């Protein structure tokens, strides 16, 4: 009884005030940006509830109240109810799929009277709690396929629901959980494979129609197949610790490729892709032979990587050219710089680059941005909110925002690492991975570096659901962190 009375005070004492400070700074900066983005000329009252800036004040106020409420709950509440919360939100997500109320072609909104909420925003913290609870159960280990598979399933389930709501962007956020899995012991080769696939896709598609000097070979295919071999060689080096084999594979791959290229250039021009395919096949053969001879399973995995890479690249090519909707293909081509479509798919990004670029060092000042004020940038107060920061606050403002986010993420890493229990650490990594993913994709798309995937910038983009969602994520972790020093039986 006595302990319970003391609790709020001790929570306040061990609360991570740095994080709260950054959180409040981001909220303030975010509100200024929403004012700038939603302000229209002749409409001067930024506090009016008819305006989005006025509404955002309400969202911010309720978020602060929500945060306070979350801090007052017992930290064991989250541990205890994790599966129940998760189960409930999965049901809501499934229910939302059958919701007929479409907004901008998406079924992700749940309309309850005057309030519209996006369950996908709340599913993030629920999933993080569930996966944290799962991974903190006694005996759970990442090395066991069954355990790892279950954890992945917990993440994939809400992702599938959200894909079915036609909100692919929000679904992709769940990929950030793999960063947490990596910290918890997932082999780095999975992340590496993911990065390699993106590399194949970008390079392969971007340079597919560029032809090399022998006038037969496509640069894109050539580079992809060559890197498949080089990557394979490196994997052998890292995971089988076999330096000799590494050099042998590298020497054969590069040597034969060079010979083929010389032959094609000076003797008879032919498509060297076929030689590379043969090389890749030979490489797979060697790896399988080594695996059988030495009875080391790793060789099979590496062979799987090699085969997977080749298949992935060809499949991606096929999907892009034959299966994708034209507008999706255009989007990808625009991003890769293959098409310039300033009036169509590239319009948003082009206008947002103009908005940001016109800000200069100091920006145009609060409410003085013309690009955003005059609605040249679509979605400027939600997904493209960073434009407003760029135009009105300039390079200094943008840098400040980026550094604030970086400080938040680094702080969260520090906090996660100091958790006495796996539950807190896993949950903390989930939170910071989600923030990192949002930052990476959202700012990247505004700067024209990543694909246009419609996900909000935490604490900046207008809207109650996302603000509540991120507040939930953050404050639950703050609450868990605040109890780190408490000794429990």
């Amino acid at each position, binding site marked *: 009884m006595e302990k319970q009375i003391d609790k709020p005070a001790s929570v306040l004492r061990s609360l991570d005030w740095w994080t709260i400070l950054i959180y409040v700074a981001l909220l303030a900066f975010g509100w200024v940006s929403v004012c700038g983005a939603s302000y229209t000329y002749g409409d001067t009252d930024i506090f009016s509830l008819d305006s989005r800036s006025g509404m955002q004040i309400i969202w911010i106020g309720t978020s602060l109240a929500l945060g306070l409420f979350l801090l007052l709950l017992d930290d064991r509440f989250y541990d205890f109810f994790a599966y129940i919360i998760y189960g409930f939100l999965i049901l809501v997500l499934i229910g939302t799929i059958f919701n007929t109320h479409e907004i901008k072609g998406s079924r992700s909104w749940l309309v309850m009277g005057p309030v519209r909420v996006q369950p996908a925003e709340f599913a993030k913290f629920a999933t993080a709690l569930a996966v944290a609870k799962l991974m903190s159960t006694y005996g759970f280990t990442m090395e066991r396929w069954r355990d790892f598979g279950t954890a992945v399933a917990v993440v994939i389930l809400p992702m599938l629901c959200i894909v079915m709501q036609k909100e692919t962007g929000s679904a992709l956020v769940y990929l950030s959980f793999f960063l947490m899995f990596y*910290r918890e012991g997932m082999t780095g080769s999975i992340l590496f494979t993911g990065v390699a696939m993106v590399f194949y896709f970008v390079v392969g598609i971007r340079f597919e129609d560029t032809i090399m000097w022998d006038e037969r070979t496509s640069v894109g295919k050539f580079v992809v197949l060559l890197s498949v071999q080089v990557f394979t060689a490196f994997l052998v080096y890292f995971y089988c610790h076999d330096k000799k084999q590494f050099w042998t594979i590298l020497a054969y791959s590069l040597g034969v490729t060079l010979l083929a290229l010389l032959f094609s250039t000076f003797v008879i021009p032919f498509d060297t892709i076929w030689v590379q395919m043969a090389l890749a096949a030979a490489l797979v053969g060697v790896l399988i032979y080594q695996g059988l001879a030495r009875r080391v399973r790793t060789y099979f995995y590496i062979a799987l990587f090699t085969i997977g890479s080749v298949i992935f690249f060809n499949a991606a090519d096929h999907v892009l050219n034959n299966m994708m909707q034209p507008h999706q293909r255009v989007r990808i081509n625009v991003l890769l710089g293959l098409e310039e479509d300033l009036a169509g798919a590239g319009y948003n990004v082009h206008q947002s680059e*103009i908005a*940001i*670029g016109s800000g*200069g060092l100091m920006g145009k000042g609060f409410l003085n941005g*013309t690009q955003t004020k005059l609605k040249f940038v679509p979605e400027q107060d939600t997904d493209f909110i960073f434009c407003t920061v760029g135009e009105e606050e300039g390079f200094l403002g943008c840098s400040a925002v980026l550094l604030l986010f970086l400080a938040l*993420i680094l702080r969260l*890493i520090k906090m996660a690492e100091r958790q006495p229990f796996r539950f807190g650490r896993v949950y903390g990594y989930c939170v910071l991975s989600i923030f990192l993913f949002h930052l990476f994709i959202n700012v*990247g798309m505004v*700067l024209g570096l990543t694909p246009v995937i419609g996900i909000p910038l935490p604490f900046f983009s207008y809207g109650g659901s996302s603000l509540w969602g991120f507040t939930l994520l953050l404050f639950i972790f703050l609450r868990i962190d605040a109890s780190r020093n408490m000794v429990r039986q």
Partner: protein
Amino acid sequence: MKGNYELENRRFIIGGVAIAVVVIYMIRLFSLQIMSDDYKKNADSNAFLKKVEFPARGAISDRNGKLMVYNQSAFDLMVVMNEEKGHLDTLEFCQSLGISKEYFIKRMNDIKDRSKNPGYSRFTQQVFMSQLSDKEFSIFQEKMYRFAGFYVQRRTVRQYVYPYAAHVLGDVAEVSPSDIEEDDYYQPGDYIGKLGIERYYEKQLRGEKGVQILLRDAHGRIKGRYQNGALDRRPKAGKNLTLGIDVDLQALGERLLEGKIGSIVALEPATGEVLCMVSSPTYDPRLMVGRQRGKMHRELQKDIWKPLLNRSIMGQYPPGSTFKTSQGLTFVTEGIVNPVTTQYPCSHGFYYRGLHVGCHGHAAPLSLVPAISTSCNGYFCWGLYYMMSNRKKYKTVQEAMNRWRDYMKSMGFGYKLGIDLPGEKRGLIPNAEFYDNAYKGSWNGLTIISISIGQGEVNLTPLQIANLGATIANRGYYYTPHVVRKVQGEPLDTAFTRRHQTMASREAYDYVVQGMRASVLGGTCKHLNRSDIIICGKTGTAQNRGHDHSVFMGFAPMDNPKIAIAVYVENGGFGADFAVPIAGMMIEQYMHGKLSENSMKRAEDFQRRRIAYGKANR
């Protein structure tokens, strides 16, 4: 299996990824925001619509305050495609505008075609038809409420009260790309003076454009004024011009030269103001207004009689005997002849060393005054010969020649006078070098004798001939001729208020004036002898490969002259045939403000007279 310690180190990789992302984004921001200025310009052109407000162009009136050129509103028909949206009753629309349905469809497609209309936006007004006249507009206006999406924008076009003085007034047209290059004041679609004073006084007439800086959104819709109009500028109206031209005199001149090729220039000697400047053939300036200007201009350009040529300042003609006055002035001032005692023989011309310059029959020998009144060739040939051969005064013939040239130059010959009209020609006054080149250095007074009677190499513009009249009327000076006597709110250019003194002496002028008076009283232009106006004059019959040109130069009244005039009628025969009677009517009109009944009949008669010009001649 990995140890906990190894896994803990993975936080550095994750933290490193976060740092890398932020660093890469900051580099990208740096390149977007700091390294390049293009984005800023792009944003400004996105957001700011500079709406130009056109000032009214200055009006032009004649010396008596009669309005000659003014602005009339015309109407541009504008369409906003987004509002039009095909609800239009096309048939009715076309009927009320008097256009065909095909034209309508073509026009609408042209507007939407971004290659032809690069600034197209379906949210903003696009020009459907430009410069509708009042009449066209009033028919359309009644029904306009039925044509959604169509708007009318008011603008002004030049209107001319009189069909006269086209060459002087000039016209305005849309700026050409080279105009824009020369002066960044202009933007495509602006108007600029192309000819005449519209061009010369462009800067004064055009005024100053105003600008409103408006904010527009991504759809091109106007969202208000930038900084509430703090940076806007009001347009400044152009300045009005008052001409020296007397429009009635101009009208009479144009009537009299109908059917003839030639020019009449009248000046006010005391000021240099141009009282009239007629060049024939001419055209009606009212044709050069509005949509048909380009077509009319091309047609006039093709015309073999070159109606666009302002012969008064661009035609270079031999002045004929009118030039003898300038010779008399030179010889007397240089002391080559004594105006009273020096007499030269003339027996039907000038005979010397086998050279013969013919002359008509008259009493001989004679002195300067009768030589002018009878227009004796012999007298002036001898005069020039003695000047060129005078080795006491001039060491060489070259020196004599250049001295002679200096006199001519001081009277305004051989160089542009500097009138306020574009395209003036300088005429030709030869100098020693000219003849050295032409005759390889072997020439003398006899070689060049014909310049003394205004033939040979000498060429003057009608304006220069009129100016000769003005210098004689002034007894020795002139003001640079100018058509504009007043620019509203600014003083006249000092170039037009500076007196140019000639080299000839006052004494010489008195004798020449006597001679010109004598030619009116009993010499070559007896016809001009009248009791009410004391006219001084000098005829000319300029020899020509075809029929001679008929020339007259004179002024009136003799004392305190009000008008100096030159009349040049191509292939008009003797001076007395055309030039003299025309000058008489012009002087009467100007001095009395109207013509007597007799003169009116004569004027009608002259208006009807045609000179037959062979096509090959021009």
